[in-house]
């Protein structure tokens, strides 16, 4: 177990280092932040002062070296725009996106698993076919388009739900959450549903295949022959085996969900990390862009680690030593 963890940690650090380097140089190509940040009225003195203050007048390798040195000590630099640490700026937005992603994931699981199992149990039935063809839509329609459609139906025409933004929040240990009040939840429904749609289709697909495979197994036949009630067959024998790949895939997808909630957050003006990234790219706020990608990278690494752990717990055949391969 310990060896497994160390290996993964070293691997994770390596990934972080490579990402940081790539992103650092890529962001350099975006443009000079001072050109965008400084007021158009500013004269050369003002511009030069801004360049010097941000350290942009130094050679790129020198900037990279000091970036690395500071990063090792946990300092990813100050946001050019906000004038405070980039990590602080991002971490302030993290709960907002996390909340959105968790609700979306819950929606995806709550809809996806039952539908997938139904479709898997009765693949030839009308409901089975409808579910499977419906899931194709979920795959192929772009997120931002779904978002706009939902806004135009539920917000503009029916006026049932707000068109965007974040609802009122309740503080929990200093973290503002909007999931705890009805009014706050209303703001979450549309973006979370939009974000969930693709994952729902994915879960349906995985569950359907899983169900069909498991359904053919001898132990299922035996259980049926022994007269175990169908509900128990499905919830115990079937579900336990179907759910393992769902956890693996969703674990990975959860990281992606946090990292790439960008389109949904933009369409719904949802003030999370994704929108921060877009705003920061427009303002060429280098430290925030770099730190953002490092934070998401860290999330990916961590989530993978957790998934592997869960996987091994759920499936006794997978042992930590096996990951050596």
């Amino acid at each position: 177990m310990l060896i497994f963890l160390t290996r993964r940690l070293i691997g994770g650090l390596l990934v972080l280092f490579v990402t940081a380097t790539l992103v650092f140089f890529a962001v350099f190509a975006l443009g000079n932040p001072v050109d965008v940040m400084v007021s158009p009225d500013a004269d050369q003195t003002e511009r030069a002062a801004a360049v010097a203050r941000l350290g942009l007048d130094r050679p790129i390798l020198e900037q990279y070296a000091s970036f690395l040195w500071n990063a090792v000590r946990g300092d990813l630099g100050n946001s050019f725009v906000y004038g405070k640490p980039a990590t602080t700026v991002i971490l302030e937005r993290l709960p907002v996106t996390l909340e959105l992603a968790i609700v979306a994931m819950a929606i995806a699981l709550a809809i996806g698993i039952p539908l997938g199992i139904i479709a898997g149990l009765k693949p030839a039935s009308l409901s089975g076919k409808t579910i499977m063809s419906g899931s194709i839509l979920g795959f192929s329609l772009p997120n931002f388009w779904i978002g706009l459609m939902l806004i135009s139906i539920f917000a503009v025409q029916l006026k049932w739900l707000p068109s965007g933004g974040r609802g009122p929040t309740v503080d929990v240990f200093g973290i503002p959450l909007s999931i705890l009040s009805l009014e706050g939840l209303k703001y979450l429904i549309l973006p979370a549903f939009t974000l969930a749609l693709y994952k729902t289709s994915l879960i349906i697909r995985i569950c359907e295949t899983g169900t069909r495979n498991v359904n053919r197994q001898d132990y299922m036949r035996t259980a049926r022959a022994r007269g175990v009630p169908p509900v128990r067959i499905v919830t115990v024998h079937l579900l336990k085996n179907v759910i393992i790949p769902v956890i693996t895939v969703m674990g990975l997808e959860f990281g992606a969900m946090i990292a790439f909630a960008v389109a949904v957050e933009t369409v719904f003006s949802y003030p999370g990390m994704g929108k921060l990234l877009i705003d920061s790219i427009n303002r060429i706020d280098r430290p925030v862009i770099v730190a953002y990608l490092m934070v998401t990278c860290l999330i990916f690494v961590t989530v993978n680690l957790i998934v592997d752990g869960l996987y091994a717990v759920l499936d006794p055949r997978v042992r930590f030593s096996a990951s050596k391969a």
Partner: protein
Amino acid sequence: MRKTGITTVLRAAAFAVVASLPAASWAADLKIGFSAPATTLDPQFHNASQNIAVSRNMFDTLVQMDPDSQIVPALAESWRLVDDTTWEFKLRPAKFSDGSAVTAEDVVWSLDRPATIPNSPSSFTIYTRPVVEKKIIDEQTVQLKTAAPYPLLLADLTNVFIVSKKATEGLTSDKFVTGQGVVGSGPYKFKSYTPDDRVIMTANENYWGDKPAWDTVEIRFLPNDSSRLSALLSGEVDAIENIPTPDLEAVKNNKNLVVGEKMSHRLIFLFLDSGRDETPGVSAADGSPLKANPFKDVRVRKAVNLAIDREAIASRLMQGLAFPTNNIVTETMQGFVPGIKPSYDPEQAKKLLAEAGYDKGFRLVLASPNNRLINDAKVAQALAQMLTRVGIRTSVDAVPFAVINTRGNKGEFSSVMMGWGAQTAEASSPIRAMIACTNKEKGWGPVNWGNYCNPNLDAVTAKALNTMDDAARSKLLQDATQIVHDDVAIVPLYFQANTWAAKPGITITPRMDERTSALMFTPAK
């Protein structure tokens, strides 16, 4: 394809909403959708227009620009010139939102403070630096001295918000996020702020002016065009700025929305690289390199000016959102020359090109932003066609604003379309920034991408900037504009329009300077 999809959806939505709006019954609350998020609530931390737009609601300046960009009193009731370099301002009896009185000390503090703020991304010192001495005469009177006669002082002061010394002394800018320090004498006072999401304010009962029109004002940051419009259509907000251009027609035709439009002070123009012997974006008609830079010849620049059909752009591409011009400032501003009118004459343009030795024409790359100005990339395409028609075979290089800025400052363009808002409401603003010879010591020509340089123009402009007499300065600025025109230092195209939309029952007072605030919206009588 994508864009069309979005537009159709929104257009359908726009019409669907018609039946469902309730008859005018208004709570005295206003929610406004802004198109750019504020980055701070410290009114002196980051000099960016979206921040100034938000601060405007809670803070006062000594003097301010009215909707037509004329300078009018604000916190200063009156002012006079003691001598050519000394200004005296009389403060009106005003109170900050915490109940304390606004004094001359606060004014001096507010003028000193920008220079002391660390990490400011773009500092307000460009407006406070001309003031070399500040003197408190009494509680309500303050004298400001400039090193030399400086007629733009008032225009500069319209950007410097007066903060409370008591509330901001020793306070760092990041503390303002909680509302600490956000103590101004403006019509509204701080209630809450969620970065990148919204600012909520309530009426300031201590305000010196007319009672604020709304009990509560909420500014929502909705940078995505479709989101901003759907927020208005769904009733999520009551008013928005910058109506997305593809949806403008649907919005105008929607009887359940009111629209406010006004000519902006933002001039859209072309830089032509007239300064360098070789310029990167041109080649001969057959694609071979050109020996000389054609734009060094004023006849070529004149040809470009004549080849552009501004009326066609305004009517066909811009749906009335462009006001064709060949001046560099609007009619209401100092430096406008009534005699300068745009003319379109492709035949004359061809003749001039032939005279200059380009009877076969040449090839040109025209750069343009694609996310900054109304219809920018489309307009650039139209310009390219018009130039091609007279023999300058033009292709368009449209890139995001952030990129164009970096490339422009590196001198990568022979010709580029840009916009400039005359913040000072007179002609020296565009001239000093982008037409005057680049001079680091003087701070002139920092964004002169056309590499234009004409000492005569600089001399006239400098003289205007040293002339305190309004009439005499106006005349000098007109002379400067005339030089810009005769020499085709830049190619002015049109003034953009600023647009707002609101629910019926709200009266919009549109502004020339693009600065949206709650003060622009009042309940209709």
